[in-house]
């Protein structure tokens, strides 16, 4: 068992004693007002976007300089205090869930864009800068930062690095890893470190590859160099209806088979379409078994050529209704329902559980049939939105958490979806991360030896397991439990954010 595990066993009195000691030690490193430890001050940090897990941390610190971050880490390392780094707290898998005997290292004050360099098409930003703020800062130069997780108005680049965040456009433009050159930060003992470089590669092992997506368990990120790319001059979207899900799934494969990489390729099933139409009134085809949104971007010449090719493929695949956006307003209207899939689901059900798995594209229709069977088996409804181009599924299981049996069936339903995804050649998390939520699913996907190797990687960076302990790598006894993410009455901590 790790150190951090042992500290869980502290009795209340010794916990309070410990808290006093930790606060006293931290007082030497940063101003009093940057240290929060009274319950009323620490409660806002008790969970991230995965609200099912709530733990008030022992202490919250809000440093505003790298010197302070380093000093905090040194103190915590010497005192063996677990450290959970936190950006905006929008993560959906509990990656920033606090540790009862640890500190929350809030990096909210690291919100400066240090440099936007149009010549090198890069930006150097502090970790607490919001994803969308980077694109806004780059816009005057005709550039933007490509990964666009749907929480992009709130989520931070540090969090994106931790989760290797994707978005609607990653089929064409890649994930966070593909758009980050360098990560600067600190090791668990407070020593400064850089992964990657300002150039396109760095000597030695490609540590940037494992730091990106490591969910705050290997190092603390304070600064990131991101790539910027020229903003496409034009984007147009095709909305196509299909009479059955098999032909919609086949259409997705046909687009790719024709050598087309769309900027976005999304699918909604009939139930989801009905839910979003009631929410946004965008004139979706309510008769269709599935709707595809297929986007082309680039120069006007490229888009014109590509739209023609996409149209041919989709019509040949049996699209029953077909529309190409005439202008930007109509394109955004096509997307409005897709982008509001989550709040729309909150409107038709007391609660919903959002899944996030990836399967090979060719299994989309098969997966939807499986989910339909599960709806009968577990006596619960499920509405579906897919990043079809990537095979990334977000089934939303509808249930009422006041009904204990529904909650139980919902959890079984969710686990069944994840296990089916693995069986179909996929993975238990496409973009939301493992965090606390998918710990159990990791047992399904990885063998004991593979999980032990993950632990070896963790310990290579953090031998005492003080950084974000208890996340990502399940212990053997955890493997029996079921993960869950459930949304109470449609309320997430940021209910206004689209989540898909």
């Amino acid at each position, binding site marked *: 068992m790790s150190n951090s595990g042992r500290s869980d066993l502290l009795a209340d009195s010794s916990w309070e004693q410990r808290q006093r000691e930790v606060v006293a030690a931290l007082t030497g490193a940063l101003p009093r007002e940057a240290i929060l430890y009274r319950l009323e001050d620490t409660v806002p940090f008790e969970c991230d976007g995965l609200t099912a897990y709530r733990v008030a941390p022992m202490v919250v610190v809000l440093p505003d300089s790298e010197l302070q971050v380093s000093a905090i880490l040194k103190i915590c390392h010497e005192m063996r205090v677990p450290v959970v780094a936190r950006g905006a707290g929008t993560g959906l898998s509990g990656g920033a869930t606090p540790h009862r005997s640890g500190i929350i290292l809030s990096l909210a004050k690291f919100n400066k864009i240090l440099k936007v360099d149009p010549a090198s098409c890069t930006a150097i930003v502090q970790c607490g800068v919001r994803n969308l703020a980077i694109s806004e800062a780059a816009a005057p130069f005709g550039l933007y930062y490509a990964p666009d997780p749907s929480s992009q108005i709130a989520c931070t680049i540090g969090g994106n690095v931790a989760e290797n965040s*994707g978005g609607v456009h990653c089929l064409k433009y890649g994930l966070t890893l593909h758009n980050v050159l360098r990560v600067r930060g600190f090791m668990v003992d407070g020593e400064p470190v850089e992964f990657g470089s300002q150039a396109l590669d760095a*000597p030695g092992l490609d540590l940037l590859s494992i730091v990106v997506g490591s969910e705050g368990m290997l190092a603390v990120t304070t600064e990131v160099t991101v790539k910027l790319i020229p903003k496409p001059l034009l984007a147009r979207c095709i909305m196509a209806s299909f009479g059955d899900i098999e032909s919609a799934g086949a259409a997705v494969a046909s687009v*790719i*088979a024709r050598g087309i990489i769309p900027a976005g390729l999304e699918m909604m099933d009939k139930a989801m379409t009905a839910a979003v139409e009631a929410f946004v009134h965008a004139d979706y085809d309510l008769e269709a078994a599935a709707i595809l949104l297929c986007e082309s971007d680039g120069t006007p010449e490229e888009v014109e050529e590509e739209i023609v090719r996409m149209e041919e493929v989709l019509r040949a695949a049996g699209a029953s209704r077909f529309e190409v956006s005439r202008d930007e307003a109509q394109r955004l209207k096509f997307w409005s329902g897709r982008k509001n899939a989550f709040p729309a689901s909150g409107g038709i059900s007391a609660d919903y559980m959002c899944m996030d798995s990836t399967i090979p594209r060719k299994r989309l229709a098969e997966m939807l049939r499986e989910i339909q069977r599960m709806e009968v088996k577990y006596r619960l409804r499920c509405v579906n939105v897919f990043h079809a181009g990537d095979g990334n599924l977000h089934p939303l299981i509808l249930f009422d958490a006041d009904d204990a049996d529904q909650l139980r069936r919902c959890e079984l339903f969710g686990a069944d979806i994840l296990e089916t995804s693995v069986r179909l050649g996929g993975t238990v*998390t496409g973009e939301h991360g493992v965090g606390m939520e998918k710990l159990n699913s990791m047992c399904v996907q990885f063998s004991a030896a593979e999980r032990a190797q993950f632990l070896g990687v963790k310990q290579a960076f953090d031998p005492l397991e003080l950084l974000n302990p208890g996340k990502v*790598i399940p212990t053997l006894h955890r493997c029996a439990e079921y993960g869950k993410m459930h949304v109470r009455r449609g309320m997430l901590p940021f209910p206004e954010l689209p989540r898909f």
Partner: protein
Amino acid sequence: MEAEDPTLAHLIDQVNGAREARASLDIRGGDTKRFYGEPAVGAPIKTTVLSGITSYEPTELVVTARAGTRLSELEAALEEQGQCLPFEPPHFGAEGTVGGMVAAGLSGPARASVGSVRDHVLGMTVLNGLGEVLTFGGQVAKNVAGYDVSRLMVGSLGILGLICEVSLKVLPVSVATATLRFDWDEDRALKQLKGWASHPLPISASAWQAGQLHVRLSGARAAVAAACQKLGGERVEAGRAREWWTGLQDQSDTFFLLDDARSARGESLWRISVPATFGPIKFPGNQLIEWHGAQRWWRTAAEPELIREVAARASGHATLMRGADKSAGVFSPLSGVLMRVHHRLKAAFDPARIFNPGRLYGGL
């Protein structure tokens, strides 16, 4: 890929045997990249027994191949379906393998535009130093389950384990392509490349050498035609253009050649990786610039210390690709903290230090 596989079982026996005997293993595929990295030691363990494409479905944009599969075999299968490895890996000989491509982690002319080998690796099965067969990542592009160990293996020169099987993201071959030539000096070429970078142009490769800049455009027909018009320059005939880019990709162009005369002058071949916007670098000898300025090849007799110092000043690093004297180290030295992580990772994957000891850095 399962440990019960008979060819794999044989490799596992070799690894377990080496561990028990405290012996080293020198992982070999097609043996085409012996020149690269620090010298190899140990008894050979051949990956070529693991051969063949395991699965390939063009509509998934994913191919899975065993490590010993010849790169040429893989590329022929992709070409048949109008697809390719977009990062244009170098071929140092017909026997080059998929495992070697991944372990060396080298990418070709398109790297600055489409990404590297690492960017296209989706999953991997690895045999570690404990004789365990482990699979990380998968066959889907979006996958954040656990640390991205398969990408850590890319460019590791085999020090963490033996790569058994790899899944790669592939892409359709561009519909249209064109190469333009400009008679510009280094200064002007670098400035112009910098200027183009922030515009939505379909530039897929660039190379400057001896007063000539070659620029390749790839993409939709209309986009390539429009860009040709916009950039100007002289259009290079398709066959000659292909020859030119292949010469760079495979490092078979005479520039890369270290023949007796050049070696006698004390020349080595250096790959200097710097931010593309860094100004001209001057050493005695000959230079070839790729990746829109981010990769500067130098064939020079300059002192390694000087080369490394210049690269470091540019926030980059320098690799001694080919040379008779490797005493200065092949790769730029790491900071103390990164080297500590390297040692611990080595210990986690290969505690008995069986695999390719010292091939990346001494002591690893």
